[in-house]
């Protein structure tokens, strides 16, 4: 039987069928639907697979490692920039190794459809010296995630599976296979390898290095590495992951050149060697950085024969598509039309009735008095406050940076120094920054834009719900400088006054600007309002 799934859902079902006991993740486009699928799956419920959201990607990956330590299979999922948050555990679990299979799925966003950058996670898998796989289609996504769990247990290493936006968010029909049982609890693992004091980490690191030849050999033998040999020796093509589709799209009757379909890393040297020995030029097609191109260059030291993103045959940045690949192959295209001039851009915008709109009108009123370049923003729907028609926030770098950048700027003499951060972003990685501010009594005002949900990724539950006041007081915010306002038109004057008062205080102040997201389903909105009111009455 065939099933209609998104690339992300293929990953999720593959993980369920591989016998995972838990998925650990923080939402982030384009990765979110993987965890959501498992949360909604009746089968996963029946199997008691853990699937609650985590506070951030680091806590998620560590929990996955804990489950693996106990012998069970665990999946951890994030977007590319989320892997930065989890880098500490990511690098070190490559040294400790794993017990139960552990697969890290990272969804990259080449072309930055919904992200601050287009970093390529394959580079980080290489950095950690672990294998990775990169599916080209939905069926392969399903098959690869199952295979990755087996490989992880075989090597006792974490394995990374790299997705890209196009595959994550594309549907097709695939076949599911038999389901493997979950692993039993097994706490007999050698604890030395999970205790990375130098005495243990040195031999463990040597072990990781000694595995490198074996993992390269596995790539060479893998069912996901396919070398198709052709007699035409003019060109050889290395097509990685989804780029393989764009190549084949251009040759409906079959590609006339030898093609290495490369979905398994480290680079299978034997196959690449064959291409180098038999083809005049090698074209490398890959979504993301010129990662494989660079390594083939390094390995063979014959730069002029390897072409791709570095040599200008393909653009240096942005995702690939069939037309760009056609151009690199010298295939003539047949594009008849252009976009008429009257078509205007239609960027995303805050929803009608969104509380952030009122909050930004209030802040803009304050801005008339305090001047520009003093409001530090963060990641979420409210990031749209950096664009027209608001132009309220002045920075947007990474999760949690609003608070800590405001502190640093305050240290440098900026006053008032204001941070705007969402409720979920605050619990993701804002709390520690607030503690820094309190420690030093920094003159900052932190506005928590609390809409009771993780709105931008589709209204997932927020760990902050009902806890913000307690968290702030617990961290040491003074009660007199912890204010709660409701961003509504009728409260405009009052709210601007609160902003004025708190931004003139030369210490830490927190203003919780609280109104549930307009996109929350009715029941959840009611619940959030009830929790918020209960919180207000505690005072």
């Amino acid at each position, binding site marked *: 039987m065939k099933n209609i799934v998104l690339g992300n859902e293929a990953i999720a079902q593959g993980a369920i069928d591989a016998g995972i006991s838990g998925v650990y993740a923080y939402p982030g*486009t384009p990765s979110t639907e993987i965890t959501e699928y498992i949360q909604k799956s009746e089968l996963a419920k029946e199997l008691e697979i853990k699937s609650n959201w985590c506070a951030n990607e680091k806590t998620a990956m560590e929990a996955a490692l804990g489950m693996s330590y106990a012998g069970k299979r665990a999946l951890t999922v994030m977007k590319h920039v989320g892997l930065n948050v989890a880098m500490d555990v990511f690098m070190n679990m490559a040294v400790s190794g794993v017990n139960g299979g552990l697969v890290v799925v990272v969804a990259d966003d080449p072309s930055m*459809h919904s992200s601050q950058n287009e970093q390529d996670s394959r580079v980080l898998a290489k950095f950690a010296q672990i294998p990775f796989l990169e599916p080209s289609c939905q069926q392969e996504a399903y098959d690869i995630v199952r295979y990755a769990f087996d490989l992880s247990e075989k090597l006792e290493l974490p394995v990374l599976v790299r997705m890209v936006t196009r595959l994550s968010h594309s*549907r097709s*029909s695939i076949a599911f296979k038999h389901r493997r049982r979950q692993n039993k609890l097994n706490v007999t693992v050698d604890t030395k390898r999970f205790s990375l004091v130098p005495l243990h980490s040195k031999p463990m690191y040597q072990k990781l290095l000694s595995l490198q030849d074996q993992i390269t050999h596995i790539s060479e033998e893998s069912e996901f590495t396919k070398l198709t040999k052709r007699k035409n020796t003019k060109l050889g093509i290395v097509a990685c992951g989804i780029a393989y589709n*764009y190549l084949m799209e251009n040759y409906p009757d079959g590609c006339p050149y030898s093609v290495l379909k490369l979905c398994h890393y480290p680079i299978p040297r034997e196959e690449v060697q064959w291409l180098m020995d038999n083809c005049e030029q090698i074209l490398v097609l890959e979504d993301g950085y010129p990662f494989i191109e660079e390594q083939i260059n390094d390995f063979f030291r014959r730069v002029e024969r390897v072409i791709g993103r570095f040599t200008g045959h393909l653009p240096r940045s942005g995702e690939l598509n069939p037309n760009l690949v056609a151009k690199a192959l010298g295939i003539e295209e047949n594009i008849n039309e252009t976009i008429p001039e009257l078509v205007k851009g239609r960027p995303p915008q805050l929803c009608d009735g969104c509380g952030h709109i009122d909050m930004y009108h209030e802040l803009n009123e304050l801005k008339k008095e305090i001047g520009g370049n003093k409001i530090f923003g963060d990641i979420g729907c409210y990031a749209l406050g950096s664009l027209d028609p608001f132009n309220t926030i002045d920075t947007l770098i990474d999760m949690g940076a609003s608070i800590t950048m405001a502190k640093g700027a305050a240290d440098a003499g900026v006053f008032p120094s204001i941070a705007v951060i969402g409720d979920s972003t605050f619990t993701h990685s804002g709390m520690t920054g607030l503690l820094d501010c309190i420690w030093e009594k920094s003159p900052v005002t932190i506005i928590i834009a609390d809409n009771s949900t993780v709105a931008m990724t589709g209204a997932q539950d927020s760990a902050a719900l009902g806890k913000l006041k307690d968290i702030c007081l617990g961290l040491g915010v003074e009660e007199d400088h912890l204010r709660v306002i409701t961003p509504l038109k009728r409260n405009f004057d009052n709210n601007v006054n609160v902003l004025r008062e708190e931004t003139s205080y030369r210490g830490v102040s927190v203003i919780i600007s609280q109104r549930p997201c307009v996109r929350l389903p009715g029941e959840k909105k009611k619940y959030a309002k009830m929790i918020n009111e209960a919180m207000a009455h505690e005072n």
Partner: protein
Amino acid sequence: MNINIILAGVGGQGILTIAATLDTAALKSDLWFKQSEVHGMSQRGGAVVSHVRISDNEIYSDLIPMGKADMILSVEPMELMRYMPYLKENGWLITDSHAYENIPDYPDKTKLLETIEAHANNFVIDATSIAKKMGTAKMANIVLLGIASNLIDIEEQVFIESIEELFAHKPEKIQKGNVKAFLKGREMGVVVG
């Protein structure tokens, strides 16, 4: 059977419902399909697009190459024009004439419709008003799908079953309303030839 369709519109206008109907109909007809869509921030009132490819042969690319779309089906007239480079020679343009104006510099509507109608194969219709008369403007997307279905080699009954399936969890009135909206669009048709 081999068709490439670009679906265009603004986040929240029901493009993904059209896409899901086509996916389901393709699966029921035992055809290959790939359908890419947009998630995340763009869904907040921004331009959204979905590439739908259906074939009786294996499909590689999730994206339709520029110059290879048989049809652009849009629930908003300006959004239709955004994807013109994808249209193949003599491809079809089908769109709702009802503009969604949430930007300050929305183009002159008369000029916009003139530009579309200057194209050989076009079908511009006020699907929003038709849907409104049938119960709710929200069904404009399904009216448009009905019109486009005349150009897609899938049986009418399969489309109907797919719509019924997709709206199975909704009240019966909505399910039936959408089937009617589809048939209304289908009978208005596209004259091929």
